[in-house]
């Protein structure tokens, strides 16, 4: 294989491997933001989910129970954020950072005994069975969580457009005045959206510990939960675009190592920053002063 082909395969493989946590956290963040709140605490939910998932998988011997545990742990953290932010005058950005700290703190605290043991991992779907090339086979060993994430993206897109629930979330997120006039339970909708959003982030965390890289330690997350906030803006609050953006971020993350393997070694720090620079650039190119971002929830404190 020539170098370009090599890098391309590595990028696709990297995208499939690295994108799943981005996918879940950004979908969770997207749902939360659609309801008019922002939750930076999803980083904490991700880390807590990774730890809980790993611990539960180790204790019960079933990785899927681990995923479930991560869902519950993430959701719990989201519930805390949702409820506290429902109190008047509580700032959701700051609370998110506090929740992030609490989540990672609890995860590190209870995660100490699980750094050493190896927990059962999630199975993979060998989509590359048709190929003889080991690179392609391994690149196409895709985690079922990736497909579940894609499914969630489709369901969310459809639900926002076609269901009453989706409409309620959107109205609550776009204008609390309109929601009030319609007698919608604003706080309850937001609490539920935040809880589900964080639960998704928790599942994203369980992917880190139970699939790829598939191990629990304290440096596991390199801020995927925070980056997801940028990713959602990048994706214009559209769940399907979130999936595409997650793949793009995953590929960008794989760019550094794979370029080094073909001999491009200068400035790898700069390659690693590529996704962030790209997001900023696209924001600069597509956002114009005086124009509201398409898809942006009107109630979002972040975007005003």
């Amino acid at each position, binding site marked *: 294989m020539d170098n370009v082909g090599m890098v391309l395969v590595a990028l696709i493989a990297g995208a499939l491997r690295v994108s799943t946590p981005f996918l879940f956290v950004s979908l969770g963040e997207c749902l939360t933001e659609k309801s008019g709140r922002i939750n930076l605490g999803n980083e904490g939910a991700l880390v807590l989910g990774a730890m809980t998932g790993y611990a539960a998988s180790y204790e019960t011997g079933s990785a899927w129970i681990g995923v479930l545990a991560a869902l519950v742990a993430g959701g719990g953290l989201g519930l*805390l954020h949702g409820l*506290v932010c429902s*109190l*008047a*005058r*509580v*700032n959701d*950005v*700051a*609370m998110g*950072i*506090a*929740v992030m*700290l*609490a*989540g*990672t*703190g*609890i*995860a*590190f*605290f209870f995660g*100490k005994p699980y750094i050493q043991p190896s927990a059962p991992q999630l199975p993979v779907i060998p989509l590359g069975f048709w190929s003889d090339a080991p690179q392609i086979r391994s690149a196409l060993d895709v985690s079922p969580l990736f497909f579940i994430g894609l499914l969630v993206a489709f369901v969310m897109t459809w639900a926002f457009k076609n269901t009453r629930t989706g409409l309620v979330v959107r109205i609550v997120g776009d204008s609390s005045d309109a929601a009030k006039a319609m007698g919608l339970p604003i706080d309850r909708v937001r609490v539920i959206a935040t809880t589900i959003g964080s639960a998704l982030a928790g599942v994203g965390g369980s992917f880190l510990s139970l699939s790829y890289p598939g191990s629990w330690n304290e440096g596991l997350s390199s*801020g995927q939960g*925070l*980056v997801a*906030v*940028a990713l959602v*803006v990048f994706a214009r609050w559209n769940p399907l675009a979130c999936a595409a953006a997650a793949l793009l971020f995953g590929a960008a993350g794989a760019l550094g190592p794979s370029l080094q393997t073909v001999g491009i070694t200068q*400035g790898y*720090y*700069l390659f*690693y*920053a590529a996704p*962030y*620079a790209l*997001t*900023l650039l696209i*924001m*600069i190119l597509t*956002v*114009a*002063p*005086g*124009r509201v971002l398409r898809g942006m929830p009107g109630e979002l*404190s*972040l*975007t*005003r």
Partner: protein
Amino acid sequence: MTIAMSSEAASKATAQPKQPAGDWGYPFRRLLEQLLVPVAALLIAATGFAIFLVFLGTSPLDFASLVWRGAFGSWFSFQNTLQRAAPLLLTALCVALPAQLGLVVIGGEGAVVLGGLAAAVIGASLSALFPPLVILAMAVSGALVGAFWIGLTGWLRAYRGINETIASLLLAYIALAVFNHLVEGPLRDPASLNKPSTLPIGEANMLGSLPGMNIHPGLVLGLVACIGFWIVIQRTSFGFAWRVTGGNLRTALLQGLPANRLIVIACALGGACAGLAGMIEVAAVHGSANASLAAGYGYAGILIAFLARQSPLGAIPMAILLGGISAAGGLVQRRLGLPDATVLVLQGFIFVSILASETIYGRFRWFQPRGTA
């Protein structure tokens, strides 16, 4: 319109209830409210954490006495606390100043590392000059680079309509990458073999300790900056213009205030503070710029600023609180055998509790203005 502030931010910045004539006690009651609410929140957090400890089989009393000993109990411990608080005062300003205009900037870490890098490079290249001059040049360059970096966020916000929270976060990631690239690449001191650093600024140019203390002058700088900006915001027409703009953009424009320029200035001033924090780390601690500069002070500053309700003055006790907890962290690890994350959990409890307590303000009528206003 470029900027539209939330009604909540508006009410927060301008809704200082008018003081009815004759209610001379109101300023005191308001002060009391501002003191009592966080203290009550702290107590609630402490209770919650105590329950957590009891579940783990650790005595909360042992824990509390160790925290006291490690953070405040002796002159040594208190200096430890103050020293840890020092950089956080400046990074908190990086959040609190733009917040006066209703902006949420969370990328201070980027300004810290780039400010520190600029200071280190300038310091090393001028190192033969008269030391106070070198220090001054370092401070100016650190502040300027920090101001540029966060000012860029403000500019993107004011003139391009890009959300400042996300822009500053992305810029922080980019800043770290640029910093690492430069420190380990073009700006690396060839003699810094196993710990890539820039050229040393030289022993003569290092800031010593404050006289009679084991604390570097960054503490004084932080305190002066906090108090100074508090006075600017509360007492000058410039600060008033900020508050008006932060409260309501329409009013600001009607008053003929250059809102966009004010945004850039507020962000740049905040960034200058964070850049100075980086410069202090170089001049007082490391002597050169290396990866240790990215120690998370920028992120801790966000919490301090919010805990202080964006008041530069309030940042002082909150930074001391956070400094004290981390100062005590080591003792807790060593004496009780608890993991290092214990301190993170405690911080989580305290921050959630204090931030939630925001909702209490104004709920009790006793603290409110009286009379028939």
